[in-house]
């Protein structure tokens, strides 16, 4: 789960990390009230879950009221990489002399958290990592002990941070690690951490992503969740509880188990088709879930044909067949051709139940995918 910048800044500020004075605003009038309070120059920043907001025009610096009105009008309601901006953070501009980077993430290869510091803040840190990997100091942390104070100091000195602010940066990094651990974050990041002419440090941006699997023990963070989906179908998938990713092709795909569904997508591509989606109905799915899955894929207007591939372990073929029948029998005419392949647990029973007037059946994965690709081509032309 991603937190918005303003939410992450609240969390950071509560923990004692300095952040600029700011107000949240949802209308142009609110922006004008806010700039009066924080003063000029003021940053007006779109609060949406996309990276590279600045480049996309979602962050602007206003130096007077007229500019504030103009930028507020531009940014509120704008479409930023598929997301509509409905709120902005209005923040006091920081007069900085240096921009640093500090962050904590999980190094999955090592199975350990890693704290990172760099003098080259203010730009995309992944680009820095690629161009100049030595510009980022990395300190792996034993998750059982947490970060020792010396490790924060070491990372800061290794990164070549100016001695005048090194102590303060180390203290921010320590706080950041503690937050990462306490909040079950997957990533926390301040980029840029600004250094002012007076030698103060201020978190000008804030990133915090939380492990979805750990939300059960963080009801306070769960309340901050804002379901923003790029489209209606992803919202629907969230309601049904499906793992779903929408793609741009015309062959709808439903299956069980992430690896096998990904494989089905790959095969559609391999046989010359183009996958419309990833949809995993999960293990042990009952008839109703199957019906919901078909409903989802049918309501995607890009879809011309559907391949339904189930290899039952804990999922039972007869339940799946029941669901497919129920979903299709409600139509006078089947909206889109459906190719079904059932294997594994109770697949034989499933094949007996399946109404083959309504669907096409194949016995191997490869054949099912090829047939669906062919059907999609016929429908499309």
């Amino acid at each position, binding site marked *: 789960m991603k937190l918005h910048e303003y939410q992450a800044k609240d969390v950071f500020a509560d923990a004692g990390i300095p952040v600029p004075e700011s107000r949240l605003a949802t209308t142009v009038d609110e922006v004008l009230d806010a700039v009066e309070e924080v003063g000029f120059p003021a940053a007006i920043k779109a609060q949406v879950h996309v*990276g590279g907001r600045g480049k996309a025009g979602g962050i602007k610096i206003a130096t007077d009221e007229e500019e504030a009105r103009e930028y507020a009008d531009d940014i509120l309601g704008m479409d930023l990489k598929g997301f509509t901006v409905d709120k902005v953070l209005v923040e006091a501009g920081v007069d900085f002399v240096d921009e640093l980077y500090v962050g904590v993430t*999980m190094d*999955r*290869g090592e*199975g*350990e*958290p890693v704290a990172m510091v760099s003098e080259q803040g203010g730009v995309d840190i*992944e680009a820095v*990592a*690629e161009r100049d990997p030595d510009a980022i100091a990395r300190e792996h942390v*034993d*998750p*059982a002990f947490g970060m020792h104070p010396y490790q924060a100091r070491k990372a800061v000195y290794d990164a070549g941070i100016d001695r005048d602010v090194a102590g303060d940066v180390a203290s921010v990094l320590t706080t950041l690690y503690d937050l990462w*651990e306490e909040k*079950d974050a*997957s990533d926390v990041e301040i980029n840029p951490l600004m250094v002012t002419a007076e030698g103060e440090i201020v978190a000008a941006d804030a990133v915090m992503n939380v*492990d979805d*699997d*750990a939300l*059960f*023990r963080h009801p306070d963070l769960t309340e901050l969740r804002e379901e923003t989906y790029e489209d209606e179908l992803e919202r629907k998938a969230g309601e049904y509880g499906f*793992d779903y*990713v929408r*793609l741009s092709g015309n062959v709808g795909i439903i*299956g*069980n*188990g*992430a*690896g*096998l*569904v*990904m*494989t089905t*997508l*790959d*095969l*559609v*591509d*391999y046989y010359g088709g183009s*996958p419309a989606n*990833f949809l*995993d109905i999960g*293990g042990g799915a009952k008839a109703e879930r199957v019906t919901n899955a078909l409903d989802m894929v049918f309501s995607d207007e890009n879809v011309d044909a559907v391949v339904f591939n189930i*290899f*039952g*372990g*804990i999922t039972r073929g007869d339940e799946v067949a029941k669901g497919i029948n129920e979903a299709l029998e409600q139509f006078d005419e089947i909206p889109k051709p459906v190719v079904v392949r059932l*294997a*594994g*647990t109770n697949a034989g029973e499933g094949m007996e139940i399946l109404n083959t007037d309504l669907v096409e059946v194949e016995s*191997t*994965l*490869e054949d099912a995918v090829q047939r669906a690709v062919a059907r999609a081509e016929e429908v499309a032309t």
Partner: protein
Amino acid sequence: MSVLVGDDTRVVVQGITGGEGGFHAEQMIEYGTNVVAGAVPGKGGQEVHGVPVYDTVHEAARREDADASVVFVPPAFAADAMFEALDSPIDLVVAITEGVPTQDMAKVKKRLSEVDTRLIGPNCPGIITPGEAKLGILPGNIFSSGNVGLVSRSGTLTYQVVDNLTSRGIGQTTAIGIGGDPIIGTTFVDALELFEADEETEAIVMCGEIGGEDEEEAANYIAQYMDTPVAGFIAGRTAPPGKRMGHAGAIVSGSGTGTAESKIDALNDAGVPVGDTPEQVTDYVEEYL
């Protein structure tokens, strides 16, 4: 021969009184697995499917001389269950639970490096030596005994490949589902090492997917240390960057690491052919035997 589990493996089921644990304990027993105990705090003294239940893993292991455990404990308590098994006399822990918090797993992984116990999973279908024992939720009827070792990050993809192998008369020594999470106990390299040392395993199938760098590390290991031939499959060639494809670990990062292309190239460079389809993987294996 086989790796890790067989006729003589004595299994404790952690969470045997739960719905999942109870159902799969019964399935395991039906398959012929030697399930000797259950372990559930507060349920000691009960009996489930003819198996005695103990309050702690330590007691179950001591009283029933168990050497392996299978964890069917809900995510909130799964790490604790793994720690309990790691600290007991158990040698092999198989964690089926899906949705264990990543930071919990980092701590488990740390403990794992300090003990001799092996962990498989979490978020995995388990391990099976056909005809002898299965620890987990794999559908036993699709497996057959033979000379191919199989290691995979995905459950249902494993079933697909095994079904292809079995229907062509190619049996398996052992199949290991290592799980789809970012931090797991047994990696591809660990599993390959086991199969390489197993005299009966004549060929190996390795099914990977996008995300992380385990497949690349496996490719390095194969090039340097292995004589047993390996055939590969990588799921997620068409996955867009930044989108999680079901498994918590299956994501191509924004900076382009974890792609299918990088994994396939690494495996090819190590002399491992990678099938475009699951059926092709079986073709490669057939050529090896």
